[in-house]
C-alpha cells in the first residue's frame, strides 16, 4: 500500500513536470527559427510614422527582402522589450538620442561596419558627434528636430508671446499651453528655464525649485502631451505649445495660423538615429536597407510626406524654395549650436518623484 | 442468454443500508419481474447488475462467470432506462447504432442490424428522425432497440413504461412480452406496478421496503397464494383479516360473531393468524344461497362503479371490520341492485382463503 501511494505521487509529479516543461517550450517558441522565418526579412524597431509604407514596398520589391517594422510608443518600452529578447528578434533600431548610451551599455547594439559607416558621409556635420555617440561608431542620424514654441497666431494676435520658455511657464493671462508629458523632458525644460543656462551640471541642485515651478505651471497646462502638440495648436485648443519643430512644421504646411519660434534660452535637440542590433547577421541586408533610406530622394520623400527632417541640411534647404514658411523652423547656426539635449542627468528616482508629485 | 445470480449483495448510500445480504437467482431466458414499492432498492439491484453501481460486498454471476469486478461496459448486460437516456444529439439511427459503433462493427453490418432491430420495434419509418421529434412511445421503442441490438445476455428494464399513458403501456407490455419470446433473452423488469408485472412476467419477485425479497414465483402463484401480508397487499387488492385460530376456523376479532372456516389444518390452535381474501372471490347478494363454506352478514357502506366491476365496501356487524368486494358487471341491468345501507350476505369458499405468514405489523 505504501509503495503504491509513493508511485502514485511520483506519477502525478511527473505529469506536472511534463506539463510545466511543455509550457516552457511554448513560451520559448518565439526564439526558434521556424516561428519567425527570419532569413529573408529585416526586423526594424521604429517610432510610428518614421518610414513610409509605400517606400518600404518599393524597397522590398527592389531588394527582395521583407521588412517588418515594429512600432513602439516610448523608448522605455523599447528598452524593456529589448531586454526581454536581448535584441535577438530585431536587426535595425531607429531610436532617440538619450537612449543610445543605454543601448550601448546593455550590449543591445553593435558598432557599424565600414560599409555602413560610409553612409555617414551623407549626413551634415550639425548632426554628428553629439554626446550620445561622439564618434558615431554606433549610430547614423536619421531624423532631427529642435524643440521650440508653436503659436496659434489667430488666438494670440492681441498679445503675441515672447520667444522664451517663459511663455510656457508663465503664459500671458488666459493662455492655455501644453506641456511635455515625460519626466525627463519636463524636468530638463524646467531646469533650463530656472537657470537660464545650460542646466546639465547644476540641475541636481535645484530640483525642489523645478518641482515648485512645474506645480505652479500646472494650472496653465491644458494638456500634457507632446504627440498631440500639432493638433492642439492648430485646432486652437492651446495658444502656445512646446513641440519639436518637425511636428509643428506638419501643420504649418496647411495652417497659416500656426507659427513657430525658437526660444532665446535655446531649444532642445532631438536626434533619432539608426543602429544595428547586436545579434544580427544580416549586415549586408541592413546596409542595403539603410542605403535606401539615406538616398536623397527617399529622404526628401519622407520630409515631404511626413515632415521628417532629413539629417542633410542641403535637402532641407532645397525645400525652402518650395515652402517659404519653412524658414521659420529652420534653425540658424547659432540656434543649432545653442540647442541642448534632453539628457538623462537627473537620477530616475528623483525625476519620478518630481513628476508624480506634479502630475498627481 | 444466461442466468444471473446475485449473492449476498450489500449496499449502502451515505450510511443508509439499502440492501443487506441480498441474494437472488434469475433463471436464463425468462421474463423476470422485480416488483416492489418505490425506494425499496430494486433500481439499485438493477444498477448493480448493470455495473453502474458498485456493491459494498457480495458477488454477481452471469451464467457461470463471476462478473463482480467486470466494469459496466464489458458486461453483456444492457439497460432500458426509466427516462430512456436517449442521446439527444443523435437521431434514431445513430442512437440505435451506438452500441455497435463503439464496438467498431463495420458499417454495413451496423446498417443491416439497425434496420432489423427497427423492424422488430416497428419504427422503420422514423429511422433518421431526431430524438426530440418522437413521441414517448416511440422513444421507448428506440431505447429498447438500442438495448437489444448488441444481443446482450440480459436485458434490464427499469420501469420503462412509467412515463407512458395507460393504453400505450398495455400495448407496449404485450410487445415486450412478444419481443422476449422472440429473442429469448433474459429480461429483468423492474416496476412498482403490480399489474405490469403480473401481465408480463414468467416469474416475479416481490421486494419489501427493507430491500428483501418476500416471495418469488410465477405470477399466478404470487397472486393466489401470497405468503405474507405485504405480498398480499402489494399484489392486487385484498382483504386482510386476522383472528385466533380454533380448529379449522378463525375467530375474527373479539366479538366472536364472525368465524371463518379455512381448508388448512395446521396445529396452530389458539394462535393469532392473518388471512388474505381477494375481493373478487367473494360473492355478494341479498339473497340466501347454499353451498358456500363461509357466509358473513354486513351492511354496505359504499358502492363504487368501476366499469368492469363494482366495488362494495361492506361493514361486518358492529365490529367495524370492513371488507372489499368486487363484483363483475356481467349485465347491463343486473337483476339485483345493491345500494348503500342494504343488508347483504357475503359468500366464499374456504379454499380461497390464504393464510399468511405470521408477522407482527
Amino acid at each position, binding site marked *: 500500500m505504501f509503495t503504491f501511494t509513493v508511485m502514485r505521487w511520483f*506519477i502525478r509529479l511527473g505529469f506536472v513536470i511534463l506539463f*510545466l516543461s511543455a509550457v516552457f517550450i511554448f513560451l520559448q517558441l518565439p526564439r526558434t527559427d521556424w516561428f519567425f522565418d527570419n532569413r529573408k526579412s529585416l526586423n526594424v524597431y521604429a517610432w510610428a510614422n518614421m518610414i513610409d509604407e509605400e517606400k518600404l514596398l518599393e524597397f522590398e520589391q527592389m531588394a527582395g527582402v521583407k521588412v517588418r517594422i515594429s512600432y513602439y510608443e516610448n523608448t522605455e518600452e523599447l528598452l524593456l522589450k529589448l531586454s526581454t529578447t536581448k535584441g535577438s528578434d530585431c536587426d535595425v533600431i531607429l531610436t532617440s538620442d538619450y537612449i543610445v548610451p543605454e543601448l550601448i551599455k546593455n550590449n543591445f547594439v553593435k558598432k557599424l561596419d565600414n560599409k555602413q559607416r560610409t553612409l555617414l558621409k551623407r549626413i551634415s556635420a550639425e548632426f554628428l558627434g553629439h554626446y550620445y555617440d561622439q564618434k558615431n561608431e554606433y549610430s547614423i542620424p536619421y531624423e532631427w528636430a529642435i524643440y521650440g514654441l508653436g503659436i496659434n497666431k489667430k488666438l494670440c494676435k492681441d498679445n503675441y508671446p515672447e520667444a522664451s520658455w517663459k511663455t510656457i511657464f508663465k503664459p500671458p493671462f488666459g493662455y492655455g499651453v501644453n506641456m511635455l508629458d515625460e519626466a525627463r523632458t519636463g524636468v530638463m525644460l524646467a531646469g533650463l528655464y530656472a537657470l537660464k543656462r545650460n542646466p546639465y551640471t547644476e540641475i541636481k541642485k535645484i530640483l525642489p525649485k523645478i518641482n515648485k515651478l512645474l506645480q505652479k505651471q500646472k494650472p496653465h497646462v491644458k494638456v500634457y502631451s507632446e504627440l498631440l502638440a500639432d493638433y492642439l495648436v492648430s485646432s486652437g485648443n492651446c495658444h502656445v505649445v512646446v513641440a519639436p519643430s518637425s511636428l509643428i512644421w506638419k501643420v504649418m504646411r496647411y495652417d497659416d495660423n500656426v507659427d513657430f519660434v525658437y526660444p532665446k534660452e535655446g531649444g532642445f535637440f532631438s536626434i533619432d538615429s539608426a543602429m544595428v542590433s547586436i545579434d544580427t547577421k544580416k549586415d549586408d541586408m541592413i546596409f542595403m536597407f539603410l542605403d535606401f533610406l539615406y538616398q536623397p530622394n527617399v529622404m526628401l520623400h519622407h520630409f515631404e510626406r511626413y515632415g521628417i527632417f532629413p539629417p542633410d541640411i542641403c535637402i532641407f534647404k532645397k525645400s525652402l524654395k518650395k515652402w517659404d514658411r519653412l524658414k521659420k523652423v529652420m534653425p540658424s547656426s547659432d540656434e543649432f549650436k545653442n540647442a541642448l539635449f534632453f539628457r538623462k542627468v537627473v537620477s530616475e528616482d528623483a525625476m519620478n518623484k518630481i513628476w508624480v508629485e506634479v502630475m498627481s | 442468454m444466461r442466468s444471473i445470480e446475485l449473492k449476498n449483495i450489500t449496499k449502502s448510500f451515505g450510511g443508509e443500508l439499502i440492501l443487506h445480504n441480498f441474494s437472488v437467482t434469475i433463471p436464463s431466458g425468462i421474463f423476470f419481474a422485480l416488483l416492489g414499492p418505490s425506494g425499496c432498492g430494486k433500481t439499485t439491484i438493477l444498477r448493480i447488475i448493470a455495473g453502474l453501481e458498485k456493491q459494498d460486498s457480495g458477488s454477481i454471476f452471469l451464467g457461470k462467470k463471476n462478473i463482480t469486478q467486470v466494469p459496466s461496459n464489458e458486461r453483456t448486460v444492457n439497460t432500458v432506462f426509466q427516462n430512456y437516456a436517449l442521446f439527444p444529439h443523435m437521431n434514431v439511427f445513430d442512437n440505435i447504432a451506438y452500441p455497435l459503433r463503439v464496438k467498431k462493427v463495420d458499417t454495413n453490418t451496423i446498417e443491416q442490424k439497425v434496420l432489423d432491430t427497427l423492424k422488430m420495434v416497428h419504427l422503420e419509418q422514423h429511422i433518421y428522425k431526431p430524438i426530440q421529434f418522437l413521441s414517448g412511445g416511440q422513444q421507448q421503442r428506440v431505447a429498447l432497440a438500442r438495448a437489444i441490438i448488441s444481443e446482450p445476455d440480459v436485458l434490464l428494464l427499469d420501469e420503462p413504461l412509467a412515463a407512458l399513458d395507460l393504453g400505450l403501456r398495455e400495448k407496449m407490455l404485450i410487445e415486450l412480452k412478444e419481443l422476449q419470446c422472440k429473442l429469448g433473452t433474459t429480461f429483468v423488469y423492474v416496476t412498482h406496478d403490480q399489474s405490469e408485472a403480473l401481465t408480463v412476467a414468467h416469474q416475479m419477485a416481490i421486494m419489501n421496503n427493507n430491500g428483501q425479497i418476500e416471495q418469488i414465483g410465477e405470477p399466478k402463484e404470487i397472486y393466489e397464494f401470497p405468503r405474507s401480508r405485504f405480498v398480499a397487499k402489494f399484489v392486487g387488492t385484498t382483504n386482510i383479516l386476522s383472528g385466533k385460530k380454533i380448529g379449522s376456523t378463525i375467530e375474527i376479532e373479539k366479538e366472536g360473531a364472525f368465524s371463518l372456516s379455512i381448508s388448512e389444518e395446521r396445529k396452530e390452535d389458539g394462535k393469532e393468524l392473518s388471512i388474505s381474501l381477494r375481493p373478487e372471490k367473494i360473492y355478494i347478494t341479498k339473497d340466501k344461497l347454499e353451498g358456500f363454506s363461509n357466509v358473513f352478514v354486513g351492511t354496505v357502506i359504499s358502492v363504487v362503479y368501476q366499469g368492469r366491476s363494482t366495488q362494495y365496501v361492506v361493514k361486518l356487524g358492529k365490529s367495524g371490520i370492513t371488507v372489499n368486494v368486487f363484483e363483475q358487471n356481467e349485465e347491463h341491468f343486473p337483476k339485483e341492485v345493491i345500494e348503500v345501507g342494504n343488508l347483504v350476505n357475503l359468500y366464499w369458499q374456504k379454499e380461497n382463503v390464504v393464510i399468511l405468514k405470521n408477522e407482527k405489523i
Partner: protein
Amino acid sequence: MKKSDLKSAIKKERFFFAMVPAVVWQGLFLFLPLLFLVVISFIKGWSYTGVHGGFTLENYTSLLDFSHLRVLFRSFFLALINTTVCLLVAFPVSYFISVKSRRWKNCLLFFLVVPFFTNFLVLVYSWFFILERNGVINKFLSLFGLGVSGPLLYNMPAVLLVMVYCYLPFMAMPIYSSLEKIDKSLLEASSDLGANFRQTFFKVVLPMAFSGIRTGVFLVFVPSFGEFVIPTLIGKGEPFLVGSLVSYYFTQSLSPSFGAAFTSISCVFLVIVAFLWFVLLKLIFTKNLRGSDNGKN
C-alpha cells in the same frame, strides 16, 4: 507484469492529469506573478535588467506621501461616482427591458449587449468625435451661437462621462439577468401606479435585482478603479489615476519595484473598500429585513 502495473496506475490518474493543465496554468500565470509582484515590492531598486538590492520597506514608505494618497483617493472617488451613476442609469433601463418592453425586448437587449462586447477602445474612440473642439457637441452649440472655444476633452468630467458610457453595459447586463428571473405575472398583477407597485418594487423587484446589482457594482467598480485607457486617451494626464501611475512606474520610468509597491497598496486599498462595501451591504440588508418584519406586524 510490472509494466502493466504502471500502465494501469497511470490510467487511474487520468482525471488528475486532466485537471493539471488548467490548475498549473492558473498558478503559473496568475498566482505566481501576483506573488512575484509582492516580492519585488520589497526589493530595493529591482529593475527588469536585473539590479538587485536587498530587502527593504523603502518602496512602501516612500510611497506613503501626499501625492500618492491623493491619486489613490481620486481614483476611489472617481470609481465611486462612476459606479453610482452607472447604477442609477442602468437599473431603470434594465428594469424596462426585462419587465416592460414586450415586443421590443429582443431589439433593446441586442443593442444593450453590442456595446458590452465591443472593443473598449472603439467605444473610447467614438467620443473624440463628440467632445472635440470641432466635434458634434460644439458644432451643435455653435448653431445657436453658443460655440465653446476649447475642446470638451482633457478634463475630469469628460473622463467621467466616457467612463460611465463604457461601463454602463457592465452594470446593465447583470441587473437585467437577475431581473429576468422574476416571475413576470407577479408584476403584471400589480398596477404600475398605485401603492401596490411600490410594494412589489421593494418586496420583489429590488431583492431579486440585488444579486445583479452586486455583480454589476463589482464589474464596474474594480476596473474603473484601475482604469488606464480612458484617462490616458480622453484625459491626457488629467485626472491622474491609479492606472496611469502604475503604468508610469512599470513602462515609463522603469522602476517596477515602486510600481509593485504601489500596486500592492492599491490592491490592499481595494480589498479594504470591498470589505467595507460588504459590511455595509450586510447592514442594509439586515436592517431591511427587520424593517419588513415590522411592517408585517
